């Protein structure tokens, strides 16, 4: 319990740092912070919306500490202000509209990469030095050096533009009405193939290498030797004895990287015009929609912290020493 409380305390502190960063940044820029923050908003928003926006970000006629408290009050009640680019909508509404697409993209790609990468890692470690290992292990390492941006661009050109096998962008064909019709679901699936596969490919190498090394470290253990001596069949020894224990570090790293994949999905979404958080952020950046950009940072930080908290809970369930401490 003490362990969990300490971790949660740390997460609150980390979130506070991100919020403070948002608060200070416009005030540290040269020039009038209100001008910096709402340069684009002045023409796009009616005066009363501007007033609300200023209040949300703490631009009130008070000393700095009170401005800071005002801003923190907005953040902790999750009032992120109005979007400038998507005018009548609030930042919350814009983010909420994009969130399901990103969750779908990130979760599908991560589970796919985790499953394929882990199985490949098990196989490579079990027959280490074999043909699969000799090609697969260096390939996995090289794959990690290829930037996600390059993987996405190459996939877009080869499969969507040159070969025309798959659509080039967006999440469904523009002529269809969203709904649970077979055509719409099929269109969503076809549009998801390239983004999901490229995002999975960017993570694949990491899982192969983690699992392979974790597994190889275990193969010298006595209980594996004992299992062999007992005459257990190869498959049972590999999966139930070696892989099951080797999986622990891979599971922790899975939870930890999940938060970071949200950032990686950003590039994929921009390349494929996929209407998730990353693409929304991109639109916000081109329109200098600062409330939207700042809200995005808070949301991504929150996603990262949640993933870490989940990893803590998993560790707590696995490792009894943490529960006693």
């Amino acid at each position, binding site marked *: 319990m003490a362990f969990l409380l300490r971790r949660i305390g740390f997460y609150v502190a980390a979130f506070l740092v991100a919020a403070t960063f948002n608060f200070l940044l416009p005030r540290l820029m040269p020039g009038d912070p209100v001008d910096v923050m709402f340069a684009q908003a002045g023409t796009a928003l009616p005066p009363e919306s501007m007033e609300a926006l200023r209040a949300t970000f703490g631009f009130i006629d008070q000393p700095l500490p009170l401005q800071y408290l005002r801003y923190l009050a907005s953040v902790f009640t999750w009032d992120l202000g109005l979007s400038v680019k998507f005018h009548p909508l609030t930042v919350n509404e814009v983010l909420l509209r994009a969130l399901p697409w990103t969750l779908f993209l990130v979760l599908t790609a991560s589970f796919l990469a985790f499953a394929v990468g882990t199985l490949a890692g098990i196989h490579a470690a079990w027959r280490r030095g074999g043909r699969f290992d000799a090609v697969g292990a260096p390939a996995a390492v090289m794959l990690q050096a290829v930037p996600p941006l390059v993987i996405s661009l190459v996939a877009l050109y080869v499969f969507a533009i040159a070969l025309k096998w798959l659509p080039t962008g967006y999440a469904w064909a523009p002529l269809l009405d969203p709904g649970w019709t077979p055509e719409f679901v099929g269109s969503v699936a076809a549009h998801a193939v390239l983004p999901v596969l490229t995002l999975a490919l960017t993570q694949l190498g*990491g899982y192969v290498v983690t699992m392979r090394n974790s597994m190889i470290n275990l193969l010298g253990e006595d209980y594996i030797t004992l299992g062999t001596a007992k005459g257990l069949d190869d498959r049972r020894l590999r999966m139930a004895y070696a892989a099951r224990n080797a999986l622990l570090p891979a599971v922790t790293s899975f939870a930890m990287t999940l938060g970071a994949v949200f*950032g990686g999905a950003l590039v994929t979404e921009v390349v494929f015009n996929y209407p998730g958080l990353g693409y929304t952020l991109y639109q916000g950046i081109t329109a200098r929609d600062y409330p939207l950009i700042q809200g995005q940072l808070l949301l991504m930080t929150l996603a*990262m912290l949640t993933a870490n908290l989940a990893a803590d809970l998993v560790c707590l369930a696995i490792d009894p020493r943490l529960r006693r401490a």
Partner: protein
Amino acid sequence: MRHVASTLLANPKAAFGAAIVALFLALALLAPVIAPAAPNQRVARPHEPPSAEHVMGSTRMGRDVLSQTLHGARTSLAVGLAAGALVTLIGVAVGVTSGYFGGRVDEALSLLTNIVLVIPNLPLMLVLAAFIGQAGPWVIAGIIGFTSWGWGARVVRAQTLSLRQRDFVRAAELLGEPALRVIGWELLPNLVSLVGLNFIGSVLYAVVTEATLEFLGLGDPLVVSWGTMLYHAQSTSALQVGAWWEMAAPCLTLILFGSGLSLVNFALDEIANPRLRTIRVKPDLLALATGRRPA
């Protein structure tokens, strides 16, 4: 140092990787001499495919892609080296201070490191770059440097903690050597391989991140670099109109340079730590070696 260099070059992986990196550095340095045209000079018709005259084709604006790639290498590599150095410097300073002095100092610095690690890097850099607006290459190097040092600091701190318990460090302390001397003469020489790994990994990370930030339109569009080349190709829909060569050149250089660096790093890792030569690779080290951070 000479010993390290000769061992490194005896390893075929490292020699190959080092050759790639050296080639890129040479091309970047010689760009004004060997490039067929000035990077922003209009020397061809728009979107000319690769030919004998323009080996990598031309852009929408009629600029020679090969010349842009060569000149772009100067910016991209300079930013990579500068940001990589900054990341390493901050990481080592924080990590060593934290690990050596321990106690309150360690608690405060570890808290700071963990916070830097847990706030997602790319969105943080995007917010910073967006407020700065059309950030030049050096500003981008600074942004990368100040937001990405967490992993280095964590790994260096762990290594310092273990070194601190060794007899030779204890002996130096008992002789009454000042802390700075113990750090400079006893600890740092033993951290060289870790710092080298961290630096190479950080350069790789910085080159890719700079390209990503500029691709997203946060850089200065007038600067010529691999990132702005991708940005211009994207904003003129080069792929959609079939001008793949405009994207291919910067993509290819990013892949080649990245592979070169990660090969060197992998070999360096094996040489510095014989135990890794079999197959053991710690996830933290691997993250450093490949420039890919889990956080």
